[in-house]
């Protein structure tokens, strides 16, 4: 099909498109929250940014007003279950992602303010006692009609201590001791904790703080709830002089407080005169961060997508008003969009934003199914007398073969009667279901956090650069300059990139994940047959190459006989995690675009433009698959060859290279296959550029309003 024949993108994608791609077209409650959040983001939040509310480290009235706006719009209560005053049933990870997306579209600091409260409640939500849940959840929602009370705000205090920010979660200097323990009564604890970079500390009424035992009568570590009226020192500390997310309050607090022992998150037991917390701080944090890491990553991707419209408008109007540029001339009408570079670079930003949101929302959907699956697993293991800790770890390891068998059977196109029965049996096993889900989530979540934020910040810099000097001014439309620096903090919050790479280096090598990865490749092969213009073949080839490289590296040794793939060899494992993240992001964009192609025509609102939309998104998939494949191939080549010694012969005679690396011939063949499948990818970029140059955009940006 020639460029002239293909339907082009009519308008920028709106809610109807997002609802289909991210699978919430049937969730009207979510759609309502999206609209409410958007009204706050593009109204009060945008006005606060425009009037310079970010230009202060202090917690100001302008910033506090935003919390009240969140309360009124239902944003504060959205993450809370109805039994505690919320209004939406069921898991809310995906919903939190939507809220983060809408707020970060304008200002991620506002998003952080909203999410930090949820983060403070998360330890209580995940591991708190029923009494703790009832107390703190109900206090954290806005007063209901007829209630006369002040809403409580929370902060989560893990990081410590001055001067560093974000220390290893396993090294705590905050201490908890027994202050008083009268026979027959509950113990009273004394908590000393100095936090660093604690979000929401300017407004918090309670803090969930991680502390280690400083007393032989308390075993291990725990998380403990501190209240501002507890006896002792509650010093909010000095504002952190951070360069990003200035709409959120961040301070370095000092606590020295007496609290009752029932403030230990999840409760405790007393054994031989020692207080044993039911959950260590690590137990709580693992449960919390599993669920809360993907939403901040969505924020960086939201910014990339938010940059599209202002950059197009700026490019089109770039020369208007200049002497000699008259209406009707190409320079007046198209401005910088006459230049291919402006279009192509913006497409890269757009593709990165789409891939990040596709990956992030997939991770969040998976998390929404996680709670029920985890509970069913725990119940099933409990019936077998296995309850938590090492016993559970051993029990799960013992089932890895069965989980692998389940995946192998589920991938088969035809099954015998015996195999069908076995598959049904495994499918009904909650432990197997958990293992498969967890193997996926433990890759998708760190990949989202790592790739969306790390690559996202790089692409945000691209977006800023496309606005020229305007991009780094406070009045840049869309606040692109501040979004760039904000993205760097998202790459750091809740575990910086190194933490995510570390986790991926372990989880990406699990057999049950790799089996699913192979199923993705098989799926892409089918997609490539049915939709040859999506870049699915390129992506499948790059995934094959990554798989081969991982397998090769897992047993390879360097010239000194040391293992290449080992836990301390970050030079090998971390780049491989980066490469995987590129591929995983691209894969989920492809899946979402297939969803749009399948269900878009069913929407009457999209009917007149669906062909152009799907064409454009297919091209965007091709563009991103090509970039991801290129990145993954480059990384894999560097790793596969880079740990080999250079044979002397190759220095003098390049024709002997093939012989010298003969055992790497499969890699070379796979790499050639990837590169050959790039054919047409630049033509897809040209087509998408044509669409970008004529797409209709609004007259003005819709924020601040």
């Amino acid at each position: 099909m020639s460029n002239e024949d293909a339907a082009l993108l009519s308008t920028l994608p709106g809610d109807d498109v997002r609802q289909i791609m991210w699978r919430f077209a049937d969730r009207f409650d979510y759609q309502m929250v999206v609209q409410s959040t958007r009204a706050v983001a593009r109204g009060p939040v945008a006005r606060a940014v425009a009037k310079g509310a970010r230009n202060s480290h202090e917690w100001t009235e302008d910033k506090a007003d935003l919390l009240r706006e969140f309360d009124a719009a239902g944003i504060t209560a959205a993450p809370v279950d109805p039994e505690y005053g919320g209004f939406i049933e069921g898991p809310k990870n995906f919903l939190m992602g939507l809220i983060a997306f809408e707020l970060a579209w304008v200002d991620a600091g506002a998003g952080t303010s909203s999410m930090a409260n949820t983060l403070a409640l998360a330890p209580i939500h995940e591991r708190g006692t029923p009494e703790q849940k009832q107390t703190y959840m109900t206090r954290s929602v806005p007063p209901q009609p007829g209630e006369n009370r002040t809403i409580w705000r929370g902060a989560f205090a893990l990081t410590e201590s001055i001067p560093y920010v974000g220390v290893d979660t396993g090294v705590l200097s905050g201490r908890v001791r027994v202050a008083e323990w009268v026979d027959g009564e509950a113990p009273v604890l004394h908590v000393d904790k100095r936090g660093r970079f604690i979000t929401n500390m300017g407004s918090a009424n309670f803090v969930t703080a991680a502390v280690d035992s400083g007393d032989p009568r308390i075993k291990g570590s725990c998380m403990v709830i501190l209240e501002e009226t507890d006896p002792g020192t509650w010093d909010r500390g000095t504002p952190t002089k951070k360069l990003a997310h200035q709409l959120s309050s961040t301070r370095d607090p000092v606590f020295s407080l007496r609290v009752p022992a029932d403030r230990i998150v999840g409760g405790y037991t007393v054994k031989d005169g020692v207080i044993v917390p039911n959950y260590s701080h690590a137990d709580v944090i693992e449960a919390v961060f599993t669920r809360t890491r993907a939403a901040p990553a969505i924020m960086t991707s939201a910014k990339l997508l938010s940059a599209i419209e202002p950059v197009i408008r700026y490019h089109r109007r770039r020369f208007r008003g200049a002497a000699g540029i008259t209406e009707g001339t190409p320079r007046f009408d198209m401005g910088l969009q006459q230049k291919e570079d402006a279009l192509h670079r913006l497409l890269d930003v757009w593709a990165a934003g789409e891939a990040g949101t596709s990956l992030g929302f997939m991770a969040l959907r998976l998390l929404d199914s996680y709670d029920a699956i985890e509970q069913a697993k725990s119940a099933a293991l409990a019936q077998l007398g296995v309850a938590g800790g090492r016993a559970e770890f051993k029990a799960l390891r013992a089932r890895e073969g069965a989980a692998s068998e389940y995946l192998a059977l589920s991938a088969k196109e035809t099954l015998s009667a015996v195999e069908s029965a076995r598959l049904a049996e495994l499918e009904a096993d909650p432990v197997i279901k958990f293992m498969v889900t967890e193997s996926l989530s433990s890759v998708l979540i760190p990949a989202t956090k790592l790739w969306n934020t790390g690559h996202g910040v790089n692409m945000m810099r691209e977006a800023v650069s496309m606005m020229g000097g305007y991009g780094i001014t406070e009045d840049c439309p869309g606040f692109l300059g501040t979004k760039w620096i904000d993205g760097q903090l998202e790459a750091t919050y809740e575990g910086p990139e190194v933490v995510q790479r570390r986790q991926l280096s372990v989880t990406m090598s699990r057999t049950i994940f790799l089996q699913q990865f192979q199923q993705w490749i098989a799926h892409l092969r089918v997609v490539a047959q049915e939709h040859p213009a999506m870049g699915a073949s390129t992506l499948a080839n790059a995934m094959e190459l990554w798989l081969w490289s991982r397998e090769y590296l897992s047993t390879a040794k360097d010239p000194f006989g040391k293992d290449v793939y080992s836990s301390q060899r970050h030079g090998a494992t971390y780049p491989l995690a980066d490469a995987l993240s590129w591929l995983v992001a691209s894969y989920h964009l492809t899946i979402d675009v297939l969803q749009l192609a399948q269900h878009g025509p069913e929407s009457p609102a999209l009917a007149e433009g669906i062909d152009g939309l799907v064409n454009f998104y297919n091209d965007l998939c091709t563009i991103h698959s090509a970039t991801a494949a290129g990145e993954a191939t480059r990384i894999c080549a560097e790793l596969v060859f880079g740990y080999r010694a250079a044979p002397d012969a190759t220095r003098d005679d390049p024709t002997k290279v093939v012989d010298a690396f003969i055992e790497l011939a499969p890699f070379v063949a796979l790499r050639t296959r990837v590169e050959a499948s790039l054919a047409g990818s630049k033509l897809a970029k040209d087509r998408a550029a044509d669409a970008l140059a004529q797409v209709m955009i609004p007259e003005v940006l819709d924020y601040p309003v």
Partner: protein
Amino acid sequence: MSTGFHVVVCGSLVPDLLQTLEPVQGPAGPALKNELMLPSVLDPWAAHALFEAAHVAATVPGSKVWLVSLGPKAKLQQLMMSIAPKVPFELVAIDASASGFTDPVEVAAALAGAIEKIPTLDRSRLLLFGGCASASRDAGVTVALVGERLGITDQFLAADELTVSAEGTLTILERVEGGKYLVSEVSGPPCAIAWATGNLPEPPNNPQVGMLNMRTMMPALQKAAAVQLASPGTTFHSVELPKQERRTRIVKDVPIDEMAREIADWIKG
């Protein structure tokens, strides 16, 4: 009032006013380019009417509000996501074109027909509300035409305020020439009020209200009757956006009076 009012608000969507609105000639007559793809908002005048209706319902116990909306079903659904959390109301949806290129007589007929079919509506308690104008096509007659069809003879146009006495008497302020109000008193319903801006702010979102509204909205959208607005006898010969003209002249030390006079002369032509 012991029994309260039955307030029916006629109001629908218009394209988001920040969008590029480009008239095109479609197969069925004039339209806006990519109209269905554009985001929509509640017509600003209809929004004022809805907020005033909710205020009346909140102050007069036993009252209830219906919003009768005529527009493409899919677009109405998106619109409801943003207005559902505002005020409590029950939706009555009519699946038809909300384009500015429709005949208000036909639109009024469809709206009146839908109102007549509301099963629990007590016409003796009816307050018919709507906007006195529309952001998509400012015919300014739709509420009056709906009122006529429903047999409502007490009609008030461009209203800014309604007060209800303890006895149920209605006092309405209508805009008239010279920035003044015509104050009217009517003994009670039924009456039709086409609202100007009113004087109420946009209510804050209340998610609990939204969730309650949502329970009735989705069934209402599903059973929305499709209506064809054929506009017989109406022909649109051409449509274009108002022309913008910009003339910039840089001057120094010109007195304000002289500037004002020059602008006034320019406007007069």
